[in-house]
């Protein structure tokens, strides 16, 4: 298939992956004759799952490319738990918190955790597995602290415990500006960085002689990926592995590592996967065991995928 057709199809899929879930939600609420209030709730929930999928997938692509590491996303690197810890701390310390304050705190917490993971990984060996190990340490630290804080936070904010695994149950119209901000961030990141990240994947010296500043690119990519993912965490909690899995599926389908195509396809896959998971957990699973957070379902699918990647990574080294 020519490159032009690949581009057209990828972007058509991306647009469809955003519009179709919204149409589906409208049609379902109309056919079921549900009141407008429920439609508004479901419609917002659909928008958020779709856009959160877009943001987390893009963030995963950007982090993998900029760190030249196929085993990472915002969750593995500890950004998610760092952001959540910051959210809990803010909820605990401040009497009246706005969503802006929570988002800002999450961004600071997420970026700090990312910085700690990177510093530790680089001081070990800088290898891809060093990032995973360092990320596990940082994630455990902040997850542990978050659970400790949860005892106090849960009494103040009912949905706090659900945020540990990421959920869209408490979708409200007020979340929209923050989600849109995250989407704008990753879109700007995509346009400015996709071509540069391609070059970065080939090595720092190679990138520098082509006129791409590796350190500046890595810094801006990490900030964009870290902040956008943290904003999602601040609104809906930690959704792990989505950003890890979708770039790999996109690369596998496209047979290329080109971020100009991989990022939009991963975004489309992320939104489809998250919307489907959330809809299933809302509609089917509710009837069996009650509503399961979408983040838990995604983790259950994503974690085995991560383990397969890890095995392939080490087989590659041995053979």
């Amino acid at each position, binding site marked *: 298939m020519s*490159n032009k057709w690949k*581009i057209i199809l990828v972007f058509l899929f991306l647009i469809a992956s955003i519009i179709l879930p919204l149409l589906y939600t409208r049609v379902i609420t109309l056919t079921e004759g549900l009141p407008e209030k429920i439609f508004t709730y479901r419609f917002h929930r659909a928008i958020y799952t779709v856009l959160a999928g877009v943001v987390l997938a893009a963030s995963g692509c950007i982090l*993998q*490319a900029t760190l*030249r*590491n*196929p*085993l990472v996303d915002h969750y593995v690197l500890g950004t998610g738990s760092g952001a959540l810890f910051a959210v809990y701390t803010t909820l605990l310390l401040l009497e009246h918190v706005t969503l802006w304050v929570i988002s800002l705190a999450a961004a600071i917490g997420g970026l700090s955790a990312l910085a700690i993971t990177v510093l530790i990984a680089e001081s070990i060996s800088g290898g*891809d597995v060093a990032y995973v190990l360092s990320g596990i340490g940082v994630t455990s630290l902040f997850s542990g602290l978050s659970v400790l804080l949860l005892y106090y936070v849960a009494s103040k904010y009912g949905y706090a415990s659900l945020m540990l695994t990421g959920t869209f149950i408490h979708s409200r119209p007020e979340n929209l500006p923050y989600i849109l901000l995250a989407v704008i961030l990753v879109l700007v990141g995509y*346009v400015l960085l*996709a*071509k*540069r990240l*391609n*070059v970065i*994947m*080939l*090595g720092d*010296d*190679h990138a*520098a*002689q*082509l*006129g*791409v500043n590796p350190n500046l690119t890595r810094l801006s990519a990490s900030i964009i990926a870290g902040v956008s993912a943290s904003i999602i965490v601040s609104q809906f909690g930690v959704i792990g592995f989505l950003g890890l899995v979708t770039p*790999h599926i996109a*690369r*596998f389908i496209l*047979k*290329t*590592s*080109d971020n*100009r195509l991989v990022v939009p396809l991963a975004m489309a896959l992320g939104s489809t996967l998250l919307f489907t998971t959330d809809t299933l957990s809302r509609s089917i699973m509710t009837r069996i065991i009650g509503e399961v957070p979408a983040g838990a379902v995604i983790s259950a699918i994503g974690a085995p995928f991560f383990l397969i*990647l890890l095995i*392939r*990574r080490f087989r*590659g080294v041995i053979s």
Partner: protein
Amino acid sequence: MISARNVTVIYRRNNIVALRDVNIEVPSEIVTCILGPNASGKTTLLKTIAQLLNYSGVVEINGRDAKSIIRELRRILSYSSTIEKQDLLGVTVLDVLVYSRYPVSRGFFTSEDDIKRVYEIAEKLGLEGLLSRRLSELSAGELQRVVLAAALVKDPRILLLDEPDSHLDVYSKIWLSNFLREISSRVTIILSTHDPIFASITCDYFIVLSRGEVVFTGPREELLKNTGILESVYNVSFTSISLGELHILLPLNQNIHRDKLVKLGEQSHRDTSYNSSNTRGDH
């Protein structure tokens, strides 16, 4: 013409002086070789010319300070050493070549021009069959050719190659030597190598480094006459032999004195005649 004046490079991390007061002038459109043992500053000199390191002193490209034309330099100069090969990110040979057109490629997506040029270079270097392969699936020799193709795909006027002959078998080395000589009429090439034979059959001009200092610059003929320079730098005996138009630098085992080389040749000649007479005797 590429020149360096009073160039000094100090690695801040360990305070090592990698280049000390280097003054060189490299003629255009020929192949120049940087020779020197490990840690003599070959890679540092190439990176300095490519403006990839901080240095004191002046590097001039065609009479202009390289620092002042950095944007233009990224289009016309290629520095190539290695390419990272992270298997699971799925980088293919085609990807490497497309991405390496970064400074000359217009627009956000890959253009028809980019693709056309990539396929031309791939064909020239015999990589057409490998374009869809991942980097991790290539042999070391194939990867070396991809690295060279990546350096050429933006059509540079200056090509800096850090050990382009490493990992290559004999056939590929000869091919590379011929290829570089062929394109050197259009491109100024500076390369570093550890192989004096490859250097002497490929390069017209030489820079010899020892512990960060330049100990020789000059055309090949001059170096071939003064092999003592290499002997003092490498602590190995060298000789130069001529085979028709080819002039070859040959490192020698310490124990073999240069005078013995002729005798060895005679010896082998005698051995052959002895064997052949012996064979005849058997009949």
